């Protein structure tokens, strides 16, 4: 089974990295959300494939959660938030997207180098999977760091988390993966509700420094 199974797993994981790059490249919020939905779909597919090749039924549940929750519910909710709160449609990036892409390339290279260093006695699928997962995690972090807007930072966090799910799914026979994905979904729900309830978009990051100074610690 190893040949084709490996290739497909490889393809799906690689696709996830590619979609991550697309997200970094996007500078409009709605488009970003759409790409994120795509990210979740690819993740669901990758997890499902892992469930198939590992014959682990519980992973199908994880894939389903990813598909329903992250590809449909959360992007929908974020759409609503953007409309309600009237957040700027354009994403403000701290550094130009070209530079960010370059940094992203560097991160992917770093993760590949790191994973290559691992001796071959571990599972090849897991190894490749981990390399891609690490890339996705780092790219998600990169996105959180390079965006000013709350929503796009949340999206960055979610893509980071997708990388984690990918890694967990790729680890053969890892228990608790479902629990972890559920826990993360709760976490993300918290974040989204947090944005929505507390209207903390401006407190998430500086838009207007003077207004913020009154809130941030010790400036009373």
């Amino acid at each position, binding site marked *: 089974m190893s040949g084709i199974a490996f290739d497909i797993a490889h393809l799906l994981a690689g696709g996830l990295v590619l979609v991550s790059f697309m997200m970094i490249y996007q500078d409009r919020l709605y488009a970003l959300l759409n790409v994120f939905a795509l990210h979740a779909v690819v993740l669901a597919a990758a997890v499902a494939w892992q469930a198939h090749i590992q014959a682990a039924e519980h992973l199908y549940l994880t894939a389903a959660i990813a598909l329903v929750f992250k590809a449909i519910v959360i992007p929908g909710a974020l759409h609503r938030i953007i409309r309600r709160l009237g957040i700027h449609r354009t994403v403000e990036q701290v550094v130009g997207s070209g530079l960010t892409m370059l940094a992203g390339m560097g991160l992917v290279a770093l993760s590949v180098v*790191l994973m290559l*260093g*691992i*001796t071959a*006695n*571990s*599972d090849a699928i*897991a190894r490749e999977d*981990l390399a891609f*997962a*690490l890339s996705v*995690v780092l790219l998600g*972090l990169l996105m*959180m760091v390079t965006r000013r807007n709350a929503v796009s*930072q949340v999206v960055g*966090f979610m893509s*980071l*988390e997708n*990388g*984690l799910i990918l*890694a*967990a799914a790729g*680890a*053969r*026979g*890892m*228990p*608790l993966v479902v*629990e*972890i994905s559920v*826990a993360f979904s709760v*976490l993300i729900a*918290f*974040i989204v509700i*947090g944005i929505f309830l*507390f209207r*903390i978009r401006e*407190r*998430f990051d500086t838009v207007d420094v003077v207004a913020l100074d*009154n*809130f*941030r*610690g*010790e400036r*009373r």
Partner: protein
Amino acid sequence: MTGTLFHPLAVILLTPAVAAALLAILPGYRLTARLNVLASALAFLAAASLFVVSRPAPGNYLLVDDLNIVFVVLNTFVGLTAAIFSASYIGHEIDSGHLKAAHVHFYHAMYQLMMFGMNLALVSNNIGLMWVAIELATLTTVLMVGLYRTHEALEAAWKYFILGSVGIALALFGTILVYVAAQPVLGDGTPSMIWTGLMAGAASFDPAMLNLAFVFLLLGYGTKVGLVPLHAWLPDAHAEGPTPISAVLSGLLLNVALYAVLRFKMLMAAQPDALAPGPLMVGMGLLSLVFAAFMLYARRDIKRLFAYSSIEHMGIITFAFGMGGPVANFAGLLHMVMHSLTKSAIFFGVGHVAQIRGTQRIDAIRGLTQSHPVLGWGLALAVLAIAGMPPFGVFMSEFLVVTTSFARTPVLAGILILGLLVAFGALLLRLTGLVFGEPEGPAVPIRASLVPLYLHMGLVVIAGLYLPPAIVTWFQTVARLLG
């Protein structure tokens, strides 16, 4: 797990869980506060009885060994005293209208849930379960930090939440990596996530994978420990939340995260080909210490001041564990315990002070020994203790850390000394302003118990002068375990 429902271990976990559920339902402040104290007391008694009761064999999920028993007892003890303190503290907050009854409701339930999370993290034998438990504890504390719903509190809670979530994510990735490293050796599924199994098989794990895992784990759990540069959430979360929670955060949650780091450090040490975790920890410890020491000077908020001092001490502890060796590990353990007791005592005192004066601004508080001698001197003792003055226990651990590290690596000890001195200067400067001079500002009469503060300080003094041989041998065993 072989124990029954009445085994202390079960009590430690079930009491907070059941209490949390009960507290969520029950009405009334007085009742819930008492129940909160009662549940904490029960958990503490159970934890203390772990010394005498035979330990259960390590199972798939739970474990009691020499290392975590230290943490569990400390955890439940400070949980108890903080609950006693919180009963009077929250009472005043309700009287003064800072909190609504509904919030208090929620607060006590969350308190027990947090205790449950921390206890679970400490006794779990499963790296996945531990991760879940720490996340649970983090989430509950996030909610408590935001309890006051002020702009500042929300800001602090939000920062804590986001940084904590990222940390949690990194820790999870590290956990997965550990599993991946263990899986070829120990086989699929749960066996590859169990401490006892991992420790036994660590020598044949892939060292490179372990290295990678440790980086993620150190940064992930290190965020919770408050190591610089991952510390940003810590000062604000301490400053804006209710003071009992600040005490618990500093006294316990940081320890729990540190416990996780220590566990993985032991794992790393068991694989000789892997990266030595010591230098990393030493580096981050020193960075935290020196950075926090300098940050102490510019603080204007009293709770934020002591929050930075917590970062400083976490730095010292991490440094000590990073140095390794029986003496330094002993010192690290001792320092951790002493810091928990002392720092929570400080927050108890600070909580009273802030309520009496109605402010947390340092320059608005003066002359406490004049206006409130018992509280003022208690706070002075606690601050002197945390600054490393004898006859308090912190001095003993600092003595051991400094002397042993200077004999081994003079340069590092020099940096350590620098940080300690700078921090001492800052703490003393603030202390002088707080407790001496002409009293100033309002003096709201507070009917509050200073017993927790003096109880902690009493323990710290006793430990500084006389450590019972039982505790010493026990610490020494653990120190050897830590390598």
